[in-house]
């Protein structure tokens, strides 16, 4: 792969991601030595897109759902996304002066508390659904979250 000089570089991929991102493409397949290229553009969502583009930049209260979908794809690769099971305020620690339940890198077990969501004055502990390692914490402390909003990414161990 290296020697023939036509391997894909990280920058190339980043550039492609950007290019696809800024287009209406929904799929780009490119195989190399057999030379195959497929580009697919969305049409059916035309209406939805137009309406979306038009909707005045609504400051989504609590994370865009699209984010959730992207993250969900990663699940296929051994990553698990923990989502908010309710609407409320996200807290990383059991009390303002306490240590956070977890940090990036923490090893967690099924049932171990990851955070609190406060809803209607009630503190709800959100537990890990898997054994794994915290890869990313997606919400800042004391921020509002909506139903289904991704909170943590955990890599299965």
């Amino acid at each position, binding site marked *: 792969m290296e020697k023939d000089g036509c391997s894909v570089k990280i920058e190339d991929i980043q550039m492609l991601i950007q290019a696809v991102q800024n287009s209406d493409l929904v799929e780009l397949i490119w195989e190399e030595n057999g030379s195959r290229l497929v580009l697919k553009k969305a049409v059916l969502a035309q*209406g939805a897109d137009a309406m979306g583009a038009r909707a005045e930049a609504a400051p989504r209260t609590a994370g865009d759902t699209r984010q959730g979908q992207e993250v969900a794809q990663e699940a296929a690769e051994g990553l698990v996304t923990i989502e908010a099971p309710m609407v409320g305020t996200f807290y990383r620690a059991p009390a303002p002066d306490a240590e956070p339940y977890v940090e990036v890198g923490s090893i967690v077990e099924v049932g171990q508390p990851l955070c609190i969501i406060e809803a209607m004055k009630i503190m709800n502990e959100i537990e890990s659904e898997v054994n794994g390692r915290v890869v990313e914490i997606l919400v800042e402390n004391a921020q509002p979250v909506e139903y289904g909003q991704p909170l943590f990414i955990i890599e299965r161990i």
Partner: protein
Amino acid sequence: MFSKILVANRGEIAVRIIRACKELGIRTVAIYSEADAAALHVRLADEAVCVGPASSARSYLNIPNIISAALLTEAEAIHPGYGYLAERAGFAEICRDHGIEFIGPKPETIERMGDKAAAKKAMEAAGVPVIPGSDGPVASDGEALKVAREIGYPVIVKACAGGGGKGMRVVYSQEDLLRALNLARAEADAAFGSGEVYLEKFIDKPRHVEIQIIADKYGNVVHLGERECSLQRRQQKILEEAPCAAITAELRRLMGEAAVSGAKAVDYVNTGTIEFLVDRDGRFYFMEMNTRIQVEHPVTEMVTGIDLVKEQLRIAAGERLSFTQEEITFRGHAIECRINAEDPAAGFMPSPGTITFYHAPGGMGIRVDSCIYQGWEVSPFYDPMIAKVIAWGRDRDEAIGRMEAALSEMVIEGIATSIPFHLDLLRDEGFRSGRFHTKYIEEEFIARKK
């Protein structure tokens, strides 16, 4: 006035409420289920919070999540629309407990009017005519004969535990009463395990006519005339109009006054509707009260010029009614057709799916209240009503002509809709004559077409 409210609903009514807020300069928070992320109400609102998965029970009825969403977005009030949480006294109470204004009546009023027996008693006490009958189950044949004599024949015998026509008998004369009573008791006992029956005056082929009322927090109550809602299928209204062809100016005044005194008696606040049955002699009887905005409110808006949803917001914010009863005037005639995503040719089977082409009707007197757009997917999870077309005319004929022209130029592709059914109905002689009743669609119109 509020600076921000949360709209605890979806579909066309959520869009309707958001439009009213935009006009009043109120910012809006939409709630939505995961299935509704692309819905029009989400796109039109200033903010949107996902409150649960597709299932209504876990999203649009998820009180904790909805309250949390209101608190987190600092919404000062919640508009419940119709359906969902609109008539849940408990929800109105939780709103109050959290310092959120519930845009509707007080929880106590909702609760009282939600209990049919209590509502009937309250209305009777306020002098509103109710359907005469026995006071609860009839204890004996003798009592039944006495009650029937008092209220006059025909009477209907109904099972206390009843439903579905079981244990129900219409009796036209005293000779038949005791036999009918026995049969009904036996049927009721077999069907519901209780032979208790009660008596009520039988109203043959009544009309369903409702009075729109509106009340502020200072005891001012005004009625906005009636809506004719007799055209129903399976208890679902199909086409509503204002005014009702069978109501005289005098009867309108009487029904309006009854509705206003009923509303005053229960300390009513915000918009509400008192539903009446009207018999063929022009007598009217209280049926129930809906303590919310109705689906068919636009026909009243079209003939009075008053924006009921904006009035709801103003009243909830503590403003006084800006008009008196004398200032309410009626102009012309309005008809509403509820367009459902269902196939009338296939037994009204629901028809969810993606709308591949949409073209709305337009022109003089035509109003469209809808939540659809081209490319949107009509979800199988929710009510099939996707649009309301309202036609106004100087008189009923003009309104009917406009509606027919509008529906024949409306295009919705990708799913089946009830438009062909409405076009048939608009061309029906019985409908055009204005002579129909609550069973007309099922017993005559549909039956005739088979």
